[in-house]
């Protein structure tokens, strides 16, 4: 269930310059990859002696620019390492197509400018719920195959945050734990801050144990999806599954997949409620209305009758709902995106499911309902 193809859409920042292979800076120095963020033998298994690696950087992590780095790795001497695929848009083979190549993909840059599909696809990847919130209050998530961290405000370009993501691509993740993914993520973040000239503050560090990411769950019709009361679906065909992340006080997220008989994912959905200010910035304008991404601009309207706060609910093709309302004194984002087949399966309807899901979270947090009460 990889969402890799979708990722490719999100990558491109125009005119990215290719190449710059990782180079040895001295005859005995350890090789390093991705602008120097990841050094051979620095801990994670994928950077160890068991693997050969080839890397390619496109762009450099400057403020407001999109930069991508791909590290292809594999057993030395194998076919895939003779012609490693290090292109930013490399396609990962689907299940059943053989092992294929394994890649670590590092990305640094702002969320896509687009306020509709591309942004929603990006959010679905960046805050995928197979990752758990980072410890020590850091604004990000990490799972065994992925990690996302929003850099501090001094790295913003205008109102737009800079986001660092790491993704392990391939049939299985070769990252041994959430901790390894977190280490790769933080060293990439440190490098990105240095390159972008915003490394003035303290580098982000993780000292506390990293949470174990949630496993995949299935949601039969009689159970609420994502374990959120009010999130009900009655798909005419296919099975509903997903990942329900830790339902914390500051971040609650869930990723949904509607899978057909052939095992292909027919539709996806994502629900997020967060009051972490850096994560809130990722949603500005994500309901597709306004090119301005200031957190206030473009969401100055009421989302509809009975709703508290500001935002927009767009239900023409699938559903995208984005509402910002105060909860326990904190501006909190409530976001639901459903591809069309899921929106049509929502019971009793997609808008109702958004309202009920948001209200389930406010009920748990002990703040007034955000959506209309029925």
């Amino acid at each position, binding site marked *: 269930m990889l969402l890799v193809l979708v990722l490719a859409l999100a990558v491109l920042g125009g005119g990215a310059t290719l190449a710059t292979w990782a180079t040895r800076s001295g005859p005995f120095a350890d090789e390093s990859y991705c602008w120097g963020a990841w050094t051979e033998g620095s801990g994670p298994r994928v950077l160890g002696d068991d693997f050969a690696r080839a890397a390619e950087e496109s762009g450099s992590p400057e403020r407001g620019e999109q930069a991508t780095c791909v590290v292809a790795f594999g057993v030395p001497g194998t076919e895939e390492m003779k012609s490693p695929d290090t292109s930013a848009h490399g396609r990962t083979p689907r299940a059943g197509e053989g092992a294929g190549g394994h890649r670590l993909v590092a990305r640094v840059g702002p969320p896509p400018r687009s306020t509709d599909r591309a942004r929603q696809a990006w959010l679905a990847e960046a805050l995928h719920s197979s990752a758990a919130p980072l410890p020590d209050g850091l604004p990000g998530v990490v799972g065994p195959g992925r990690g996302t961290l929003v850099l501090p405000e001094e790295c913003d370009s205008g109102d737009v945050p800079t986001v660092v993501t790491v993704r392990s691509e391939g049939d299985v993740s070769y990252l041994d734990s959430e901790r390894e993914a977190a280490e790769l993520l933080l060293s990439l973040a440190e490098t990105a801050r240095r390159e972008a000239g915003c490394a003035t503050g303290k580098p982000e560090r993780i000292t506390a*144990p990293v949470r174990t990411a949630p496993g995949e769950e299935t949601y039969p019709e009689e159970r609420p999806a994502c374990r959120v009361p009010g999130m009900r679906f009655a798909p005419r065909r296919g099975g509903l599954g997903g990942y329900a992340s*830790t339902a914390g*006080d500051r*971040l609650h997220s869930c990723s949904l997949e509607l899978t057909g008989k052939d095992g292909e994912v027919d539709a996806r959905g994502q629900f997020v409620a967060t009051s972490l200010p850096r994560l809130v910035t990722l949603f500005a304008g994500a309901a597709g209305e306004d090119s301005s991404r200031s957190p206030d601009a473009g969401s100055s309207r009421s989302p509809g009758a009975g709703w508290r706060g500001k935002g927009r609910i767009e239900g023409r093709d699938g559903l995208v709902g984005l509402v910002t309302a105060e909860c326990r004194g904190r501006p909190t984002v409530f976001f639901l995106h459903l591809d069309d087949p899921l929106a049509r399966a929502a019971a009793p309807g997609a808008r109702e499911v958004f309202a009920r899901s948001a209200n389930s979270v406010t009920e748990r947090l002990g703040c007034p309902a955000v959506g209309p009460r029925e």
Partner: protein
Amino acid sequence: MTGEDDPKEKSDMNDNPEDPGTPAPPSAPGAPGRLRRMARSRGGIAVVGALVGALLGTGVMSWRAGDLPFAARDMCWGSLSPDVAEALFTDTDVRSDELPLRRATEDSMHTECSMQGFGDDELESEVTASVRTLGELRGAQAWDWTRQYLSSRMTPLGDGITGMASSQRAWVALPTSCHERSYEPGEKPPLRVVTLASGASDPDSVNEVDARRGLDAMSRAVVRLANGVMDEYGCEGRYPDPPKLPGPPEGKSVKALDNDRLCGLRGVELPGWARGEDVSAARTTPGTEADGPVTGGVRSCDVGRPFALDRIRLTTVADPKLAGVVSRVLGERADRLGGDGKGAHAGGLTIYTADCQRGRAAFVAWEKNPADDADDADDTAGGRRSLGLTVLPSYVKTEAKRAGCGEVNVKVPSLPTT
């Protein structure tokens, strides 16, 4: 999750090392102390207990003696530095003995470390550290732990740590990624905790100064203990020292009872027949708000006479792993309850569970001194009233919302109405 705006105020225990905390009552004076001293005097003698469960059961303990005498060392599997350990005692002479943390046997249920405070070379008090697989407890053992460690005396440690502390008890859950042994993919490792215990879990009175010092000392020591055990297991990550916790949980935190809002909960009433002097005070888990989320995963409320609080305890356990432990307390012979979740009732204990946003949550009503009629079958027919069964439906309905379970209705056997 912790917010970046959480206070990081540190305990100031280091400033008063000569002024330490817990006034644990003398527990096993005399002979054990002398035995221990003999063992120590020979130094480096190791007597390794192989089957701890059996040994604990028979009351015979084999301890591995400490290191060289006179050398200040970190106690309890190398996790507690002398200043952290000594803060747990009023005595200055603190000695420790421990069973090995990793043991040759497969059964890793429980291992212990004993710290003892000596005054005038006589044993005066004892604090026991343990590492145990809570997730495998059931029945009376699971209840015994729940009763002692989830009372309203316990304050959540916060800061992303799953754990609580009072001046008498403390616990921290080891992270799900950290185990003594490795588990197969798909195998679910059971919940494992480190605990500290000193004297009675629910003493009649603790003066406020001692309670404050005890809470500070216990909360710091239990986090260090968890870090030390994680280190021994080779797990990565260490918890920071906890902030100064709200409290102390004794004395002033006991409030007059609002009969219409039991434990501060809107919609939860104390029934008329139960009102009176005997049920006039309540204490709720410090640092939690009645109308807020169950942040630390546990919220308890003890209700009764002002000092004893001995009538009933209501507990919400929103942490799924802990809720699993609580759900295994009552066995098959308990009377089942109906409704949207699952529940059972036996003696004065009622436990109800439901599926919620974080997973399973458990709700407990425990009558501490149930009127014990000879014919138990009579209690549903109106022979005697159960306060627990009377209050549970409204308690669960209110707390289930805060635990993220939505609307949960409980069906109890028909109760007398007056």
